[in-house]
């Protein structure tokens, strides 16, 4: 895990930091990930518990859990995605501005879970590009926080200022 951490003592170095622009931007982005909670089923309750006072998710920067896709960075798909709901999830994903990431929380979102039936989408990665999968039924809030930290690692390694194509052209979107 090689990341360039920005840790400094302002008394020694003063209030000016020298670093690469890329590193600075990824530091900003990873420490203020605003989630769009797509709480569909039981995992949504554990998502709420992660946001409540005991497993405070706002310690990690996810302070604002507003249900507006236009203002969020990561979509946490928590719960079973059925075929009826799939188009709505896709539409909300399209409404999120770049850069965006997806956490598939729970067994149902990762792979359909124990619901092997005619009405359940076998994993949300059939319609969205997923960055982190969290296993569990439901995963403990600590597991969700670990997933958020893994996502933060991933964000810190991604290039941000280079000539980047949108997600569609990067071959990441399965249509």
């Amino acid at each position, binding site marked *: 895990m090689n990341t360039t951490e920005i840790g400094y003592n302002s008394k020694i170095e003063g209030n000016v930091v020298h670093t690469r622009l890329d590193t600075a931007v990824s530091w900003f982005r990873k420490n203020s990930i605003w989630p769009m909670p797509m709480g*569909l*089923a039981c995992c949504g309750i554990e998502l709420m518990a992660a946001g409540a006072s005991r497993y405070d998710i706002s310690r990690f920067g996810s302070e604002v859990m507003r249900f507006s896709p236009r203002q969020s960075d990561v979509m946490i798909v928590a719960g079973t995605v*059925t075929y009826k709901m799939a188009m709505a999830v896709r539409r909300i994903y399209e409404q999120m501005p770049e850069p965006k990431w997806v956490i598939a929380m729970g067994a149902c979102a990762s792979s359909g879970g124990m*619901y092997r039936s005619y*009405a359940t989408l076998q994993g949300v990665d059939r319609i969205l590009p997923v960055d982190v999968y969290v296993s569990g039924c439901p995963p403990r809030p600590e597991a969700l926080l670990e997933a958020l930290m893994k996502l933060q690692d991933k964000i810190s390694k991604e290039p941000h200022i280079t000539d980047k194509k949108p997600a569609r052209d990067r071959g990441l979107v399965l249509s």
Partner: protein
Amino acid sequence: MAEVRNIEISDSAVRSAEAIDELQDLQGEKMTLNMGPSHPATHGVLRLSLELDGEIITKADPEIGYLHRGDEKIAENMTYNQFIPYTDRLDYLAPLANNVAYALAVEKLLGVEDKLPERCKYIRVICCELARISAHLLGLGAFAMDVGALTVFLHTFNEREKIYNLIEALTGARFTTTYTRIGGLSRDLPEGWTGELGKFTKEVSVAIEEADKLLTRNKIFIDRTKGVGVISRDEAIDFGLTGPNLRGSNIEYDLRKAHPYLVYDQLDFDIPYGEVGDCYDRYLIRMEEMRQSVRILDQCITKLPNGPVNIDDGKIVLPDKQKVLSSMEELIHQFMLVTQGQNAPVGEVYFGAENPKGELGFYIFSKGGGVPYRMKIRAPSFVNLSILSHMLPGHMMSDIVAILGSLDFVMGECDR
């Protein structure tokens, strides 16, 4: 001398009211609003297609099915014990209560409900009441948060974390417990659990009083909920409402008193019921039900007997693992139960239990064997939601949130 003129200036409401009569033809059209499946205030994935005339709703059409996972079809392909995890995820706020209701339904089909040991019945009652407190805490917290009181939500979630600790010590999982088995429970209580439960009942009583102080005489809360979402007595029965929604409309009926199951006839508790049938009544009923559940829990802790926890029948309950590995008869029982399930008789049975949301019923039609031929889950939230298209027209748009919160439904149960 100048005369004094009497000038009358009416306020804007009066002026617009007079103007409407003259401007009939200039009235605006109705607006269609979609309160879509992903919405912070609908508890889960519910879609409401509303037709609005200004702020007043003229037509409301709820659309469900966004969480339909095919539970009933899956049930035709699982043995009775294999289906228990699916019952957890029906009303996922009170999974223990669903487990108990399902186990009782199958035990009624098998005809062994009288053979359950006393200890098992008392532990199941403790599980049901813990689940009731947990579900009402979240229901009230979410209701208060939607109406505007955010603090209550955080307080109730704190209490629910304590319940999660207890349940995790008992079953191994925070929720989605899969605790009961056909003919008993998966394991007995751990050491010292009843002491922890006694401590918890004292703490949760304090928390209920705190939430009470924050909400019950709060002017804003009363204004938003009193007189809103009134369900009359006849409507409540005709639409098949159950649970606190039914009791809000002046009907004193609770399955635990009317058709007692487990050991509810030996316990001492009251049934709260309301007068008017508005959102405020339903809120008060849920608060009082939590206090009565605490009362039941205290009685159960003192009355809990010792003894076995499972029925002593190798054809229904998995035998002790030590005996399975050393004795032939137990090995055969284990093999038959795991591969073919309990051999249920031909027949059909319906059992309804008093869940926190209402009457959760299981109708099992069996043609023999370990797999049901047809299982129908009578979900209280499915029936409670059907009243929306009748009740919402006439209310204002901001009342929707209060009504949805007071009906307290869970989409996992509604769509199955």
